[in-house]
Each structure stands twice: as structure tokens, then as C-alpha cells.
């Protein structure tokens, strides 16, 4: 089966996110009062052939651990859906 995997990679909580800060300031300048805690990460989508959704999730987790996310600075979440 082919599965579609959605990966969400975010900077680890507590680490400075200068992009998020800059966008937060810009939103404030545009008049969006009360905006806070803006953080910017990365979304990755991929398709993958696997026997089951669990297999697909397991392989996607390996991809994240080895390449898609940096374990020192980032956390990730993933969702798997049958295509």
C-alpha cells in the first residue's frame, strides 16, 4: 500500500526562534494585537510504500531521526494516511 506521511518539524521549546520573533513583531505592526509565541518550523510531505500504516510510521520515524529533523534542536510529529 502507499501511504502519505505528513511530518511537522518544530524548533525545540525553549530554544530561541528568531524567525518566529521577527514574524511576531511583523504581525504586531500589522495590527494583530495580542499575538504571541509565534514559532516557525517546517512541514514535509512524502509518500511511501509499506505493508501497514505502522510500518510506514516506523520508517518515517527513522527518516526523521536520521535526516529530516535534528535531534539536538528540533522535535517532530508525524501523521500517516492511506492514499
Amino acid at each position, binding site marked *: 500500500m502507499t501511504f502519505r506521511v505528513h511530518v511537522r518539524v518544530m524548533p525545540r521549546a525553549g530554544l530561541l526562534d528568531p524567525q518566529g520573533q521577527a514574524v511576531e513583531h511583523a504581525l504586531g505592526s500589522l495590527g494583530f494585537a495580542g499575538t504571541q509565541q509565534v514559532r516557525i518550523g517546517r512541514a514535509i510531505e512524502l509518500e511511501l510504500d509499506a505493508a501497514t500504516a505502522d510500518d510506514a510510521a516506523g520508517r518515517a520515524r527513522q527518516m526523521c531521526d536520521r535526516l529530516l529533523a*535534528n535531534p*539536538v534542536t528540533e522535535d517532530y510529529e508525524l501523521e500517516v494516511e492511506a492514499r
Partner: protein
Amino acid sequence: MQRVAIIRFPGSNCDEDALRAAARAGTDAYYVWHRDTDLKGADVVVIPGGFSYGDYLRAGAIARFSPALSAVQRHAAEGGPVLGICNGFQILCEAHLLPGALMRNAGLSFVSKPVDVTVENTRTAFTAGYAPGTRLRLPVAHGDGRFVADPETLARLEGEGLVVLRYARAEDANPNGSMHDIAGISNPEGNVVGIMPHPERAAEPALGSEDGAPFFTAMAVPAPTGTAATSTAGTP
């Protein structure tokens, strides 16, 4: 004559400067393409600066898996000296040859200017020519130079004296928000060193400074047995 391999990726820069600085210091310096699996008898490896693979995903994340890097990993594991400059430092962190990571500069801007750093660890394969505490002015040119590590790793780096270069605190010289003003670190054995500043851009009088030249003269000296190259204290 010591053989110095300069690894080249698509997007490398200052590779020619590094080759010239190493050759000028009296080494037999040559390029190794990132697809090569053979370091051709290298005594020393330099991973230069630049934007390997366009910095896609994260700086150094893809270069880490290139064939040449597998050879560099083996060279480092055998105690061979490896210097990563700028993008080379990012690659060494992504390859887990050095701890921590280099994130987007705190000010978001690409910073290209000379900065003041102090040499804090002279027990490495590349800094033995400096006196501890020596102040250098070296160029930096990076967008992702903010050194980040978890508190345990920072404590270990400080406790074991593995911070090689530090942005000068008195001058508030930290250009990127690096934790503990760290500009460069080494592994415990001292054979793997990563630094954000560019010593090859300050390695001869015509460049206006020779502050970085000792990084390269150190490459011309064969590693004495029993020191950095063969490691100490029970590390595998």
C-alpha cells in the same frame, strides 16, 4: 610532506583559500570531490566553508551523507586530524563528529565581518601553535552560526576545556547569539575541530592578517605518536 585533503562539495567556498593556506604552510594540499570514497592518503582533512547542497533542509544535513564524509568519519575515528570551517563545522555537527548544532543567527542577518575571538584550547591538532588566551581577529561569514547544545553538553564542553575559540566577551563580539559565546569546539581527543571563523582568509600578509596562519602551519607537522592522533583516556 604532510598530505592535506580539502573536501569539495557543490556549493563549497573558500576551498581555494584553504588549499592555498595549507600549501603555503608547507603541506601537499589537494582537493577531494565529495563523491570520492578515497581520501588519497590524507594525513589531515579540511572541510571548507560554503553552502554545500544549497544548505537544503539544514546546513550540512545532506553533505553529511556524501561518500567522502564516510571516509572522513573513518579517518577521524582512527585519530586523523579533521578541521571543519564554517559550513565544515556545520557538517561535523550534523555528522555527530562534534556535539551540538548551528542554528539561524539570532539577528537573522547573514553576518560577514571580522570578529575578535580568543584561543581557549591549544591542545588540539590545529591550535598547538597558539598560546592559550591569544586574541585573534578573524573573518566570519555565515547565516547559521548560532551554536546550540543542551545544558549537559555545554557543561561537558566547558568542564573538559573543549571550547577552542570564543567570541571576545569584553568587546561583545558574539555575532550570532551562540551559547557561551562559542565560536569553535573540539572533540575530547583534539583531532576533530570545528570553527565558524575563517582562518584561511587571514593566513598571509596580502590578506591583511596572518592571525589564522597557525591553523595551517600545524597541518605541516606530523602528529607525534601518543598525543592527539592516537588519543588518550579510554575513548573507543
